[in-house]
């Protein structure tokens, strides 16, 4: 027994000495904060921060001094945690989510489409434009819903995507895959929203879709803050100037400028009513 103990002790000591020497000789500096930052991130690897993944972003924060509030899914929580690790004051980031700038009455099909059922494939050259009338509107094949890493987008019965604001983190993956860039990511304070993307002149737009922006300019004239302009035949809101008065919402003849909050409320009440009906 003693021999065994002695033998193991000697062996251990010799090997330990070798390792001690090696660790001295081959010493490499690492920053323990990289792992800590990685811990603080949600780990969705969505790439919304602009880095190829959470670990790359963590490394960038610690080693290259990247901003700490880039993580969109993690939002304020992540930023605060990273701030603590890095010893930087974190400013709260406003939650962001995507909204779809098409209200989709232009989906009259021009022809039967055959081929790959993704929006990008359907909008490729040589396919006679798109298979529906509006060349700016939603194609309705649901690439955004498939691309959403958080399952926040659902295709409605009208073949338009609907974003669940509670699940959406504003990472922008949907906008990235949409060939027409219809989902627009913005902060929660973006209350007034133009739900159309049609840049054709009025007459043409009118022909393709009943609810297309015809660039009539009523909203522009009505706006007391010079916050809405018709650019390329399409109403565009300058959110720096918008004071949420809602006048444009009221005057739009096509009802495509909406008050997001009011919409949501209306939807909720409708849902509640329905639920109440069902229970009754």
């Amino acid at each position, binding site marked *: 027994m003693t*021999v*065994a103990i002695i*033998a*193991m002790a000697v*062996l251990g000591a010799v*090997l330990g000495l*070798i*390792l001690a020497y*090696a660790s001295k000789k*081959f010493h490499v500096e690492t920053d323990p904060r990289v792992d800590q930052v990685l811990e603080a991130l949600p780990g969705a690897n969505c790439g919304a921060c602009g880095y190829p993944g959470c670990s790359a972003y963590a490394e960038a924060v610690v080693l290259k001094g990247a901003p700490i509030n880039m993580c969109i899914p993690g939002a304020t929580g992540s930023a605060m945690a990273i701030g603590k690790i890095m010893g930087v004051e974190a400013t709260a980031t406003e939650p962001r989510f995507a909204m779809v700038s098409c209200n989709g009455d232009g989906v009259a099909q021009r022809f039967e489409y055959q081929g790959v059922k993704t929006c990008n494939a359907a909008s490729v050259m040589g396919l006679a434009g798109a298979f529906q009338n509006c060349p700016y509107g939603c194609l309705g094949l649901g690439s955004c819903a498939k691309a959403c890493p958080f399952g926040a987008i659902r295709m409605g019965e009208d073949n338009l995507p609907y974003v669940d604001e509670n699940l959406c983190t504003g990472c922008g993956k949907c906008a990235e895959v949409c060939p027409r860039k219809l989902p627009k990511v913005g902060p929660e304070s973006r209350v007034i929203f133009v739900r159309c993307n049609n840049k054709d002149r009025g007459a043409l737009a009118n022909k393709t879709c009943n609810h297309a922006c015809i660039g009539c300019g009523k909203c522009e004239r009505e706006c007391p803050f010079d916050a809405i302009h018709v650019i390329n035949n399409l109403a565009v809101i300058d959110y720096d100037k918008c004071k949420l008065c809602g006048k444009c919402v009221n005057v739009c003849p096509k009802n495509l400028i909406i008050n997001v909050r009011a919409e949501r409320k209306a939807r909720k009440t409708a849902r509640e009513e329905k639920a109440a009906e069902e229970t009754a």
Partner: protein
Amino acid sequence: MKEYLTIMFGLVFVQNFILSQFLGLCPFIGVSKNRSSALGMGMAVIFVMVLASVSTMALYKGVFLNETLIKYEMDKYLDIVSFILMIAALVQFVEIAMKKMAPALYQTLGIFLPLITTNCAILGATQMNVVKFSGLGFAESLIKSALLGVAGGIGFTLALFLMAGIRERLENAPLPESMKGVPIAFIAASGMALAFLGFQGII
């Protein structure tokens, strides 16, 4: 000569550490996602396996079976413990050295390098040495255990590399959700083991 060939062919194909003895499955599943890291891991295993084989054999023959120490019969009960210690130290050494000298390789192998420590294939190889070669002369046993290390390591690398090819292909396959990742890797490993059964009985 025939003996050496038998060791080589036997350990690479017939008695492959992974596919026929089911040793070293952890790195086999863990590091077989792409070919380059599989090759790196395989090289690391060959390297460590040779070192471990030779050093433990030397320890075994030189210390445990030493004329003066043999009466303590340490070879009867101390081999596994001391071999693990030896291998652990070796792997630590390789890891430290690799971190300094080949950081890219270190990045790809990541967590799996320390896993070689507890890689049963390595311990298995050292045990196999003891069982097979302890009756030989000092020099001969060292040479044969080194060969066993090389052959076992090559067999390991072969299995790992083939697996990496398969998993690269499966990467883009529409696998059922429940099969993604490790489950399909194990099924693929079983398929490989079934295929490798074909070498059975050749030696």
